């Protein structure tokens, strides 16, 4: 089944399947289907050697949940081409720090996907923190609404902060001090 997602600011079709771990399930025993998948961190850590080739090709990605420590992936980043970050609630802001660490500290440059409770009104902050794929919950936006939502990515054009999308803060990026025309 294919889903509409936003990749680099455009709506595209995507078939990547999300693998979740039932409570109490053994990661080592969890079935990993063929094709493009995103597997939980626990499954990856339990079966890294077995899954490594699929990860290298980009077919298999790993997702981490809001409370999971991204540094557990530090040694795998050379192999990984797709990482997902789950937002259990859109008000849970831990995923932003996860992305900031992956892009900034750990130098990860592959696909970084936000999924779960991912809403249009957070697209700007999400992309600034380094997410290049935005996957709202299935059914949250119909096709025209998702197209329209892409506009929110550009809500702020010259943010003050340095972040994944802006390697320098505004005070290093721009010559500041030209008075605003509004000022009398």
């Amino acid at each position, binding site marked *: 089944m294919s889903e509409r997602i936003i990749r680099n600011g455009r709506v595209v079709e995507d078939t990547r399947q999300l693998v979740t771990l039932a409570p109490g399930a053994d990661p080592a025993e969890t079935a990993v289907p063929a094709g493009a998948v995103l597997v939980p961190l626990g499954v990856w850590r339990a079966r890294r050697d077995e899954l490594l080739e699929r990860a290298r090709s980009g077919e298999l990605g790993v997702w981490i949940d809001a409370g999971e420590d991204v540094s557990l992936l530090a040694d795998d980043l050379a192999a990984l081409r797709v990482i997902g970050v789950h937002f259990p609630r859109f008000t849970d802001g831990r995923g932003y720090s996860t992305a900031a660490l992956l892009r900034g500290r750990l130098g990860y440059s592959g696909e970084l996907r936000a999924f779960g409770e991912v809403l249009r009104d957070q697209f700007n902050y999400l992309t600034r923190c380094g997410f290049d794929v935005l996957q709202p919950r299935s059914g949250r936006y119909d096709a025209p609404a998702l197209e329209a939502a892409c506009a929110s990515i550009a809500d702020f*054009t010259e943010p003050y902060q340095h972040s994944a999308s802006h390697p320098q803060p505004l005070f*290093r990026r721009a010559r500041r001090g030209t*008075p*605003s025309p509004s000022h009398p």
Partner: protein
Amino acid sequence: MYQYDSYDQQTLNERVAQFRNQTQRYLAGELSDDEFRPLRLQNGLYLQRQAPMFRISVPYGHLASRQLRKLAHLARAYDRGYAHFTTRTNVQFNWPRLEDVPEMLAELASVEMHANQTSGNCIRNITADPFAGVAADEITDPRPWAEILRQWAAYHPEFAFLPRKFKIAFNSAREDRVVLRVYDIGLDLVRNADGELGFRVLAGGGLGRTPILGEEIAPFVAWPHLITYCEAILRVYNRYGRRDNLWKARIKILVRALGAAEFRRQVEEEWRHTKDGPDTLTVEEVERVAAHFAPPPYETLPARDPGFESLLDADKAFAGWVRRNVREHRRPGYASVVLSLKKTGSAPGDIRAEQLDRIADWADRFSFGEARMTHEQNLALADVRQADLHALWLEAREAGLATPNIGLLTDIICCPGGDFCNLANARSIPVADAIQQRFDDLDYLHDIGEIELNISGCMNSCGHHHVGHIGILGVDKNDEEWYQVSIGGCQGNDTTLGKVIGPSFARDEIVGAVERLLDTYVALRHEDERFIDTVRRIGIEPFRERVYENRVHKRKTVHV
């Protein structure tokens, strides 16, 4: 004061457009209540008991005259003709309609104002000394640093959904006038042994249900690292602060759970990676911002103005006002004036549109076009010539803004409470009013001397009751309004949390309880001893005894 450049203005305009679009989508049913809530909160809009409440940010309390006039205009056009000043140097309107808020934001943006991040689980308005730049005991002007941090915090992509709200303050003087230890991050401007400027960093303070005073986590962070160090604290908090329980989500709980030493270790570990990175401040940027806070064009004046001196002798009422409401200034011949928003009969911190216009006018004529909000909910004109004080006083008196009670019992800090606030357990304004009515006699007020009485309508502590010499807290008992009284709290360098004196009081008992506290003080004080010093010397027990002694008798007679 800071004036926006084209980047500041463009970013703010984009914010206004963003929220206008969000409000439209909400009204069209495309956004649920839950989805819209954090968006409107981060644009200052609460949905309240009576009507929405709209909270405008006044960064470090500075207001230009044109901004005061804009607030007056908003009060008339969208509200019922008045505004409320809070303890966090925000301005609140209580009656605007949701549909009007995008337009109000656009109006504010036209004078470089906003309601950004005045609510919600994000970095809130940043506060600093209201007497910045004029206080004699200042180490350095905190405003450039507060402005730099304001810009960094504005629309920060990583920290818009923290576990809970996050408040930052700067202290820059020998006397702490911002209650630094009750902030999530308190930044104390200091110089090290080499004379280099930096910050002593406190973290984990906060009032609310579990009041905790902030602890020092770094004795000295050199100024270039202001942003990276704060970012390290925020990141540790964003990742590890509790999100499962609203009452345990503030950073103070994390700091206490880890212990200050372990928290510091985690921050330092985080900071190790970002220190000296792109967010490291540059001399150019600091100088660019600091230039906006250059001293105004002061005149060279004698230290004492002879006309002013003779008016002090001739006019007793004027002299009384000067004694209470006028502060020393760093420059000869100048003074700072505190306009009291604590006149008996009007709610503490409330101000009418005409008064805002008058203050704008005085700011232009007497104080280089600026006014400053204080966390005690008053308004200061920082740079008034001594020679102008009498003229200003005459006009302020006529406008109801010259009550000579700054620092006295009736200068009450009081949150809006149950009359306006959804979260309240009890009303606070009628309690403040009853106390002001009962103790309206100026001679009595002067006899009682300096005392701070703070009232909060609930545990959220917006009225800072924990740090009042007398603190009154609204509590709910079987759907009735009751009030818990604490004493011995104090702000300033020796910030202390008050102790509850005993069982709470019904509304009609509360003024009597305050009166008995004051009687106890008058009976037991040493000469020239302030209320708080007496409490410190003898403890709360003598106060408790006298307050409840009366009460028990009263109860007994009722029940016989």
